[in-house]
């Protein structure tokens, strides 16, 4: 893998984090929308099986808050 790809990926992540990390703070009582079930920043539990077959059938995995590899004879 070319080193500049890794550098570009890290840089992209850092820039995105910097942009997102503003000082805007939503108060607890204003979080009624972001606390909703569908607003969770994780995959739904029922999707775990789809993620599992995708790990077998595709070369890419990880960066979804779940497993990144290992634990199975998969890619």
């Amino acid at each position, binding site marked *: *893998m070319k080193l500049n*790809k*890794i*550098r570009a*990926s*890290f*840089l*992209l*992540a*850092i*820039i*995105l*984090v*910097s942009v*997102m*990390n*503003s*000082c*805007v*703070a*939503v*108060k*607890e009582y*204003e*979080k009624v*929308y*972001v606390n*909703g*079930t*569908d*607003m*969770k*920043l994780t*995959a*739904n*539990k*029922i*999707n*775990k*099986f*789809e993620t*599992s*077959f995708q790990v077998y*059938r*595709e*070369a*890419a*995995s*990880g*960066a*979804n*808050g779940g*497993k*990144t*590899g*290992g*634990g*199975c*004879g998969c*890619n």
Partner: protein
Amino acid sequence: MNKLIIILLLLLLLFTSLLCAQEKQTDTIFKKRVLEKTEVDFLMSYYTQDGDHAAVTGGIGTEKLTDITPTFIVALPLNDDDVLTAEVGISAYSSASSSNIDPFDGNQPANPWVESSGASAKDTWVNGSFDYSHSSDDRNTIWGANLSVASEYDYFSIGFGGQISKLFNEKNTELSVKVNAYIDTWNPQYPTELRSGFNVPVGYSTNYKEFDKLGRNTYSFSVSFSQILAKKMQASLFLDVVHQNGLLSTPHQRVYFADTPDFYIDSFHLADDVERLPDTRFKLPIGMRLNYFINEYVTFRSYYRLYTDNWGITAHTAEIELPVKITRSFAVIPTYRYYTQTEADYFAGYNTHLSTQEFYTSDYDLSKFNSNQYGIGLRYTDIFTKLKIFKLGLKTIDLKYSSYNRSDGLKASIVSGGFKFILD
């Protein structure tokens, strides 16, 4: 110079986070239980696939497979601050291509397009895991540890890890760091014609040698960052750095060379070798989620991932979910996922590799392709958990169907179901 810029950006980010935390950290400590009651999830899926590029038979042959996966997850509050989650799952599969590890043990002539009826046609993957988490009194720090064990006929895995999460900026910002290791071991099942004692045709010989190291280790370092961007919008970033070493080849996947003579029994092409892949791999996936509450009926959920590794694969994944509340209790969730990848440096199709190469595979999971996945989900929620089964109150039912189509012809479908209960 680049390193210096990255370090400066990281310091700036850290400084901004701490400043925000100091400025806005005015939470009054009110200690609510992290998990009010024990939750029990029963999940299950039924998966089917078929295609024409089985890796076991060197890139040709049936890929027919079915898989049933019952899974129990129990989340148990140990006290106000601590939660223990246990998961037990089984994956019972029947695979036409795996059956052709030994294509000669059936009742019909051997053929890569026909499923054999031998012992390797079925297997069961069993998985158990424990996850412990502790939250601080102000709920701004969460740390945890996990342990997992998985086993199937030709594979055994032990995994462990830990993580810490820190919430800042009036719980608008969360930064998590996670480390994990999987120590896995193969019990290789080589193609039957390559095993000693098999009665091979006159003249058939290969340079095949068994693998001498059977361990596969995976180490991952993950960072995730989530941020509430507005009252109705939040996003998260995930970065994983993954290093694997050991036996990364799959020992029962055949390879055929273009520059060696071909030998057959019935209609079955005898292997020239098994897949040979490098013994290290470095993976770097970066993912991002963005969720937006459109109105009380519709929410927009999105996900994107960029993946790259040192085997020459670059992949992009994009996914959209659109949960729509039909009534107070029912929601319909249409989903679409697009995936594309380049091929691994070591991939070539059936009978096209050369015997002089160091590494080779004809596993189409490592080929160039794209895929489209369409899904529709249905969710029922009973916030009062009126329906009781013994002491368990039913909270939600989830059902989902997805259809997956890969550009190399592989088609799959999966039906998933989930039942969440709360223990009274």
